[in-house]
């Protein structure tokens, strides 16, 4: 049981970024995606979340989830933090709590955002904004966490908070897929190595218009 990826391929702008990726992450385990810049780590996470068109199978507990099931099971933290600069920290988090179904109290406390809860988000530092983005993971229970470079801009306290949250989630039977360059302090149960060359050997379409490269 858990997350299983089979023969996943994904193209961006007419180029195959991922080709025939396959791995499985059982419940309660952490998978770490590694690879040089441009190897397709972010694309793989977006494909898993259903945010990028792809071929192949992404199964959860042996079934391919539809959109509703995905939104119940998955939480995605990309490198954009989805923070509105005009709203305060608390308002930002309350909005996502309402949308995802949860309460912001614990999320605020875990990532040390209580002191800056009333601050407009445009005054936040990069690290504070990242903490606000990550705190969304704790708002509503989602079994599968997809984290894209979650440690960028975090200080040591926030890093510890993230580690604690990841460990706790894994202990509770959650699945975590992390794309990262540096060490994040949790042992990788599953390692997925992506290389920049493997996929780029094949061109999907030489016509950039058909391939969508024009946007």
């Amino acid at each position: 049981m858990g997350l299983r990826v089979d023969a996943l391929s994904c193209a961006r702008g007419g180029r195959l970024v991922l080709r025939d990726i396959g791995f499985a992450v059982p419940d309660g385990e952490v998978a770490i995606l590694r690879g040089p810049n441009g190897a397709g780590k972010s694309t793989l996470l977006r494909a898993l979340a259903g945010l990028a068109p792809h071929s192949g199978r992404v199964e959860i507990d042996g079934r391919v989830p539809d959109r509703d099931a995905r939104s119940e099971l998955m939480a995605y933290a990309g490198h954009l933090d989805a923070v509105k600069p005009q709203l305060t920290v608390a308002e930002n988090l309350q909005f996502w709590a309402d949308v995802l179904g949860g309460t912001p109290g614990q999320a605020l406390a875990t990532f040390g955002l209580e002191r800056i809860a009333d601050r407009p988000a445009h005054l936040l530092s990069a690290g504070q904004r990242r903490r606000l983005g990550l705190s969304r993971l704790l708002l509503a229970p989602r079994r599968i966490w997809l984290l894209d470079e979650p440690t960028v801009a975090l200080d040591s306290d926030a890093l510890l908070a993230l580690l604690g949250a990841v460990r706790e989630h894994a202990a509770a039977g959650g699945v975590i897929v992390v794309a990262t360059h540096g060490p994040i302090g949790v042992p990788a149960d599953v390692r997925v190595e992506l290389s920049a060359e493997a996929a780029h050997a094949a061109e999907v379409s030489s016509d950039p218009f058909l391939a969508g490269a024009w946007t």
Partner: protein
Amino acid sequence: MSAARAVLARELALALRSGGGAGLGLAFFLTAVLLVPFGSGPEPERLATVAVGTLWVAALLASLLSLDRLFQADAEDGTLDQLALAPLPLEALVALKATGHWLTTGLPLVIAAPILGVTLSLAPASMPWLVASLALGTPALSFLGAVGAAITVGVRRGGLLLSILVLPLYVPTLIFGARAATAASTGADPLPALVLTGGLTLFVLAGAPFAAAAALRVNLR
């Protein structure tokens, strides 16, 4: 608070705070309409003949003005990705955002129109019909605009493409909406044109969320 109410409340809060688009459409509407007498001459009879057309065209362009940021702002800061993964259907998201756009752009125009109508010596008989046709027609402008905004969400400086896509679709609403108000001043029956304006809006309200949601899905990558 439910997800739908949260999205609508946030749309209104963002539009009304600094950097939001709420004042933009209204300010453009006021300026455009108030400049017309300088261009066409201040004679009341001449102004009266162009009043309805001016008000409708200005309203149409004003509602177009803030549309290009409707989904683009959310796409740029990652909010759209998160909302695409949220339990709220994309169709509902589109409908809520278009409703928010109408409440902050279309509705102020409807309220300001009678005052500007007076400055353009609009025939008193036309006034209620102008307000009614704007009230019935402007929601279609926001919802059609949402389709265009969803199609151009990935295009930088997509405002030009958006206007080219959306303006032709605005034409039926403009024709029937303006027709209802002019018919009242010439003694013709304004009701058929008004009913057609409302019918067009209902059609757009029903179809646009699905079209825009499909376009957003294509643009997620």
